[in-house]
């Protein structure tokens, strides 16, 4: 079997989710080729070549791929897919955007968001916001798969010595064009990569209090900030902070849920976290059913106390 993994990166560095996707590929077993499509991204290709388990890197370096459009990435993957038994990408806003195009053009089903590999043709994936797990077998010749990164460990970033080959990028479709991008500027780790996530809900009451209460705690723990849908809908936090079924899926070492009730759609995005702490004044809030440690109290008292107590900790 030969597996093609589509790398996610920002032209400067490989995103960590790519390493998790490579681990999923190695669970399937077979030769692993990584495609790096970008612009000025030779460094990313070198990093991909060093990942343990990768045997070949394909580098498509073209101005059109600086901000990759779904139509163009799909066309490139289609051009390279023949001869591969599996095509994998992370189930992020990047992978989810173009992979179904690849599947449709190959006339095969896509298996979305896998969390387990049972056999080279059989995969486990969550359905109904993770309230059920479906085990599905693909009867198609080529398996097109997106991978839930939090379900697989990261492949070691070194130890590999793959060859890097340049590939020609097909001419752009001209169907769509990049206009602009606004990335949240933050000194904090990104939600998907953070070891600790501090997440707030409607209990925070306002955007000012969301930041005023949560930021000192996040700073102390080196955490990313997350939010419930209710907090985002209320304008307390930007869209890209949303954790849940329809937001980002996270599984940090430590998830601290503050003033959020724990709707099933939110739990779907964080219940694989290793340790969950809930702080809420409503002792019946569903978040306490998944929390390892629950503290019933007024978050406006408790969170500053927690910051002070952590400051008093050694180290």
């Amino acid at each position, binding site marked *: 079997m030969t597996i093609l993994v589509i790398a996610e990166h920002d032209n400067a560095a490989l995103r960590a989710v790519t390493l998790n996707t490579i681990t999923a590929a190695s669970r399937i077993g077979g030769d692993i080729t990584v495609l790096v499509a970008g612009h000025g991204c030779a460094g990313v290709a070198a990093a991909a070549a060093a990942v343990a388990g990768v045997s070949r890197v394909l580098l498509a370096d073209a101005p059109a791929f600086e901000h990759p459009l779904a139509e163009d990435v799909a066309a490139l993957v289609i051009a390279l897919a023949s001869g591969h038994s599996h095509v994998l990408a992370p189930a992020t806003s990047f992978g989810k955007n173009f992979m179904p195009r690849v599947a449709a053009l190959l006339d095969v089903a896509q298996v979305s968001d896998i969390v387990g590999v049972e056999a080279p043709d059989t995969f486990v994936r969550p359905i109904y916001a993770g309230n*059920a797990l479906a085990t599905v077998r693909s009867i198609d010749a080529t398996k097109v798969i997106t991978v839930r990164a939090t379900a697989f460990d990261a492949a070691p970033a070194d130890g590999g010595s793959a060859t890097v080959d340049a590939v020609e990028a097909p001419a752009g479709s001209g169907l769509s064009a990049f206009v602009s991008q606004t990335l949240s500027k933050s000194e904090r780790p990104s939600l998907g990569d953070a070891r*600790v996530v501090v997440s707030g809900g409607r209990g925070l009451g306002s955007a000012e209090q969301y930041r005023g209460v949560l930021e000192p705690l996040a700073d102390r723990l080196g955490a990313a900030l997350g939010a419930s849908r209710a907090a985002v809908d209320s304008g307390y936090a930007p869209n890209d902070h949303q954790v849940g079924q329809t937001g980002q899926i996270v599984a940090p070492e430590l998830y601290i849920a503050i003033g959020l009730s724990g709707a099933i759609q939110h739990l779907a995005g964080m219940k694989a976290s290793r340790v969950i702490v809930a702080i809420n004044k409503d002792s019946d809030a569903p978040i306490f059913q998944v929390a390892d440690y629950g503290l019933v109290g007024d978050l406006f008292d408790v969170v500053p106390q927690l910051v002070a107590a952590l400051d008093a900790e050694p180290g």
Partner: protein
Amino acid sequence: MKVLVPVKRVIDYNVRIRVAADGSGVDTANVKMSMNPFDEIAVEEAVRLRERGAATEVVVVSCGVAACQDTLRAAMAIGADRAVLVATDAELQPLAVARLLHAVAQREQPGLVICGKQAIDDDASQTGQMLAALLGWGQATFASKLELSDGRAVVTREIDGGLETISVALPALVTTDLRLNEPRYASLPNIMKAKKKPLETLTPEALGVDVTPRLITVRVSEPAKRQSGVKVADVAELVRKLRDEAKVLR
């Protein structure tokens, strides 16, 4: 310009689903069904386009059992003009739905298709992108803002880490994210009016589409339950537990 909006009938998002005891799937008997919430946002967006004169007609389409008519009526109560049901009792997977919608789009010739970004039952997030590929159209997924001008759709997309704006030549396909709009509640007069709007029924056979599933469900199971934890009395106990028991403090 005509706008086509596919809508899916799913278990209502407030229902706590139950996995069937024999592992064959999820119990859908006697469970409240509703329109997929993202599709409701898609219908609302299309109706707003018509209301401000950017679209002339909103056609909704659903694929599945006869009861999908209720979903189509709900979409027409929001303001869609007419509906198409592709009726079948067969299991439909995203690729099959995309192929059915492709056939419908070829008959209807819309200038824009607006889909929900994912259905809350299978959480696949595939159908819109697949349909765009089959049509050979450009796509803009996860839209939080949509503007039409000069034969193009300018779309702000929600991506991990921020927002991206792209411009797509029409005809195009857009999938909706949560914050594109807030769908209106259908008024009683509009619900009554929707009952009289035209609803055409087709079949996969009539459209010449093979809907045979490519994925075989081996089993559906319940995820492992998280052990419920403990309540701590105060911040001091919480910090002690995090340090000594969970060992997550550095």
